[in-house]
């Protein structure tokens, strides 16, 4: 980091986390997000009570590694499950069952599959938490009474003060031009 983050304070002397604006509808929100994206901001986010269709493109978000990681861990889990059954049946506790060969792979298929599914499911959920930095039970936005209505029916864009392009007046102006209403500073 070449430049230290500039700290902004509200009139009451509290550090500013960002500036938030409300939007009327999913369409207005998408439109606003496109404007903020085109203005070159990087540290900002869109908040909506449900995932708005096409918002990833409107925000310019890129895909991450979650599906790949989940796939690899799932297949790895299935492999570990297979090897474990092989070890138990042929090495650890080789017992004659109906005179069948010890290393027949067919009876191991169901358990291999189930273990693969188990690993995939845990990786998908825990990976989602990890990529989202959750659990995070404290967040400046969650202190904002007006923000809590997002979980009901409000649509909000919040540009964070940590963004290199952030400026209290100009950012607010941009949000206003993009169709935002009800501006508010969010305190850290």
């Amino acid at each position, binding site marked *: 980091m070449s430049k230290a983050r500039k700290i902004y304070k509200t009139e009451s002397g509290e550090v500013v986390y960002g500036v938030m604006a409300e939007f009327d509808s999913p369409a207005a929100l998408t439109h606003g997000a496109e404007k903020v994206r085109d203005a070159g901001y990087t540290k900002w986010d869109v908040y909506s*009570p449900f*995932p708005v269709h096409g918002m990833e493109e409107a925000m310019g978000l890129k895909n991450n590694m979650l599906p790949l990681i989940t796939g690899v861990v799932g297949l790895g889990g299935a492999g570990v499950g297979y090897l474990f059954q092989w070890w138990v049946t042929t090495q650890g506790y080789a017992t004659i069952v109906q005179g069948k060969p010890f290393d027949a792979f067919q009876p191991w298929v*169901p*358990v291999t599959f189930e273990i693969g599914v188990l690993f995939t499911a845990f990786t998908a959920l825990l990976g989602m938490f990890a990529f989202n930095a959750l659990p995070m039970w404290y967040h400046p936005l969650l202190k904002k009474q007006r923000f809590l209505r997002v979980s009901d029916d409000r649509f909000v864009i919040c540009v964070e003060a940590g963004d290199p392009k952030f400026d209290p007046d100009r950012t607010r102006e941009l949000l206003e031009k993009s169709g935002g209403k009800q501006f508010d500073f969010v305190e850290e």
Partner: protein
Amino acid sequence: MSAIHPDEITAGRLDGSYKPDRPIAMDPATGDGTLIDDPSKRPPLVLNNRSFHDITEIVCGYCEQRPGGWWLPVFGLVSTLAGVGTLMIIYLLVTGVGVWGLNNQVDWAWDITNFVFWIGIGHAGTLISAILCLLKQKWRTSINRAAEAMTIFAVVCAGTYPGIHVGRVWMIWMVFPIPNANAIWPNFRSPLLWDVFAVSTYFTVSLLFWYMGMIPDFATLRDRAVLRLKNASGPTVVPFIQLRQDTLRAWIYGLLSMGWRFSTRHWQNYEKAYIMLAGVSTPLVLSVHSIVSFDFATSILPGWHTTIFPPYFVAGAIFGGFAMVLGLMIPARELYPNMKDLITLRHLENMAKIILVTGSMVGFAYFMEFFIAWYSGNQYESDVFVYNRMMPPFLAEMFGLSRGAPYWWAYWIMISCNVISPQVFWMKRFRTSPLAIFIVSMAVTVGMWFERFVIIVTSLHRAFLPGEWGMFFPTAVDIITFIGTIGIFITLFLLFLRFLPAFAMSEIKNVLPQANPHPPHADHH
């Protein structure tokens, strides 16, 4: 805008003028307006033009407000049944499996019947949430949460039976591959062990799927509680102590929501993880009942040793599961305010169609078992179907056959409930009538229980050697334990309706017409 509260509905609620329970206009042609036959017209998924806020109010209202007067008596009854059932299980544990009616010939009876019955019921939830999700069936959003909850509770009931039927219950841990002093490992070539892995994986993955879907809704409940606390309103937990219900809600729902804040960056990962869970749950749900059927199909007992079992069991599980979903949701939508807005006649009709399809598949499988028993020329196989299952003794006498099937009535209950009763759904009048659907779904539930009873007991009671033939008669403990699991199931379901978000709010909001960011006639924004 009102003086009491900026939000119209909340203000109306506070001064008592808001009447949330709006009646639904019924139309002779389209029912509640959703039974449109014209494929070019999209029937509404939610009725009464509900706003996003209405959805929040309706769904959160189910767990924030006191339920109707019916709730407590019903809860008292079913939790008593659950308690008595638990006492029966304790009695079994301290006495032994001899308290059941099992004997040397019929050594699996109601225990495994109930296990397969419950695990089958558990299949509709994951089918609705996973397969219908992958198929982009938007109507699933208003039934998936309750169906998933039902899955979890059914698997809880199912899992009880293998645990307690083993005789030496204190050895049950040996089904898991746990390192032990004797260096004994489980036999991975046994279908019973596959079953352990299938059922425990199914339970775990269903639980993860269910929980993950509820995270945003927990956050909604948390935020509403926090907002009410800021206004210092709302009832306290016990009189005279300043602990508000909303404090508990903010804490518990807040903890469960993991600090969810509805960020699009989060939604992006969330949707990916959700679709991946749906992707692995789809083969999982098909595998679980297949593996349960292997318990029977890999044995050499006539009546069990059949390759049709895996698809037949899966179809039967979906059939029985949907019947149970309907059996629970039809009374619920009568009892809870506004639930008919979310679960429309169209939803019921769609599910009735699935019952018709899967019921016909099950009927085809019954027929196919007969056909193959005859076509294979296997004497033992055909004897099971004729002399163990189908032929009533009085008809056998009439035809001059040596004997009839003592359990013929169980077989014919199964056929009439599972194959014949759903056929009424060919007629639109029946598949759009909640009462008719409820009656059929109850019949199907009974029929599916008898299907498992027929498969297990009638195959076992007369196998190869006439010298070991016997009969099975349930004891009171058998019967009360089964009623007890029904009690456990409904108790858990009532608690779910009372304390957890019974509908996937964020998903329902997403399928409302106003959620579309590119509405068809809004090119001038």
